[in-house]
């Protein structure tokens, strides 16, 4: 049960690693199967005898997917939408989170609470009114519809995250700078932002992946193929009668890779405590 105490017996070790093995297997298998399917020609995808064994593999599906104009458009839409919406969210959130974490003014507490509250409001409640708003603004046929509506989940999320991060930056650093004649905005620019760098990068990466993965609003807002992001594009791809699982899995894997790479980066940033060093130094 605990980390302390005696050394484990051999039997207990075997049990422990067996259970761990089962967890790893269940977690990994769908990814393996995705990869395997993506590397096969259509007739092998359905071949019973060769369900699990990697033979006769080909990169043809990747070539097809990456050279199709539809997928190229969806990838570039996903990049543009995720990048633009997250940049805006992070800019809004940095200012707001600094104000809510550090400045003393009437309503700051209530505001911080309402940020959390709005973060918890599910998208299923918002998608129809957001669709009508974008329709009224005449934005439905542009990527702006997604860039703007993604603020609904990214701004509360990033503000909440940065709020926690700013609170960990020692106030003494700020006081010292202000005694030296720095203005509040000067403090934000010269002291807080550099120190909060990892926090801001983390918020950006989380925001980016949230936008990258978003499905419901993407399906609702982008009704024409050239406006779709990858999730909505792949969904439209699979509505037809024949499902090309090989290509679909290749595209799905391509959409997953950036997310996993970004996540690996964030894990490191989360662990890094930059503030500790700055107080000591």
């Amino acid at each position, binding site marked *: *049960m*605990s*980390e*302390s*105490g005696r050394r*484990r017996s051999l039997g207990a070790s075997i049990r*422990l690693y067996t259970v*761990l093995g089962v*967890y*790893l297997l*269940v*977690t*990994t298998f*769908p*990814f393996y*199967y*995705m990869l395997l399917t993506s590397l096969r020609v259509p007739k092998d*995808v*359905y071949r*019973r005898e060769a369900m*699990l064994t990697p033979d006769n593999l080909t990169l043809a599906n990747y070539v097809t997917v990456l050279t199709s104009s539809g997928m190229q458009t969806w990838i570039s839409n996903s990049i543009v939408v995720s990048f633009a919406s997250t940049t805006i969210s992070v800019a809004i*959130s940095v200012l707001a989170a600094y*104000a809510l974490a550090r*400045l*003393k*003014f*009437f309503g*700051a507490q209530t*505001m911080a*609470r309402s940020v959390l509250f*709005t973060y*918890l*409001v*599910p998208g*299923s*409640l*918002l*998608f*129809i*009114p*957001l669709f009508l*708003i974008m329709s009224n603004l005449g934005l439905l046929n542009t990527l702006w519809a997604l860039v703007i509506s993604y*603020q*609904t989940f990214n*701004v*509360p999320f990033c*503000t909440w995250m940065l709020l926690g991060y700013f609170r960990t930056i020692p106030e003494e650093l700020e006081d010292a700078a202000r005694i030296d004649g720095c203005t*509040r*905005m000067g403090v934000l620019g010269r002291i807080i932002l550099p120190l909060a760098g990892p926090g801001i990068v983390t918020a950006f990466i989380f925001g980016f992946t949230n936008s990258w*993965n978003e*499905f*419901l609003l993407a399906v*609702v807002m982008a009704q024409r193929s050239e406006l779709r992001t990858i*999730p909505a594009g792949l*969904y439209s791809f699979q509505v037809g009668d024949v499902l090309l*699982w090989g290509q679909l*899995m290749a595209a*799905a894997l391509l959409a997953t890779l950036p*997310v996993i790479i970004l996540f690996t980066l964030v*894990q490191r940033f989360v662990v890094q405590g930059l503030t500790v060093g700055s107080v000591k130094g």
Partner: protein
Amino acid sequence: MELSAREVKQRRIVWSRLLGKDAALGYALIVPLLLVIIGLLAYPIISALLLSFQDRRLGLPGRFIGLENYAELLFRDRRFRTVVSNSILFTLVSVAGKLLIGMGMAILLNQRIKARAMFRGWLLLPWVAPTFVTALTWRWMFDGTSGIINYLLMLFGVITSPIAWLGNGATALLAVMATNIWRGFPFFGVSLLAGMQAIPAELYEAAEVDGASPWQKFWHITLPGVRTVLVVTTMLSTIWTFNDFQIVWIMTGGGPAFATHLFATYSYQVGFSGSRLGYAVAISTILAPLLIVMILALSPLIMRGERE
């Protein structure tokens, strides 16, 4: 009438006493946030509420019909009844599954294990992967004719002929729940693990001196130690699971015969395939009171965790 410099200064002092010393800059910095909260959250929520009192078709102006949508939902819409029972079953089973498997993961990773950080990152993969990818992949794995799940079950002699998992009601609901559990258990796992690692080791040492069994240690030390994080994670997951859209929409589209429709998928279908926006919105706003109660109960717990 000109104010003297002294009067101006005095007024500023009065204002700063009322609003706080950093009021001017503070309000200036939260203006963009306020715009988002008002324009993209408060306004849509209020307009959702107003829409739910209307007969509103796609592309047409709305007509006020009072509580008619709600009356239809509650008393005349038999499909909605199916949606409610599907959602409750889906949420209960999925959250319970995620909780149990996640608890197992946390206990496992809380042992002395080499390369724990690597395993934690690895087991987090289902949570990290985009949900639409997960839904597509599991749809393919549950395929009735060529799916790997049928193949494996037949290989090990569990079944003798393939099952059309997504083709009939009961198994389709099972399949979407299994997928949801697979995707969501790591969130419970890492949250509970963080909670467990904050429990002082001395508690376990003392219990061992007293000869407590592993089960007793779990029941009397681990579980109380992770209580808050357990409640927060479960409530968060309940909100998310209850409002799930992607997994069901991609895997089954709510079918077969409505067996897997949830609130969000039904709302989407009524709104965009059936073009009845007012009714579609009523399907989600009818949950709002429950949602608000849950969020209000949850926020202080999260705020407290934040301060600790």
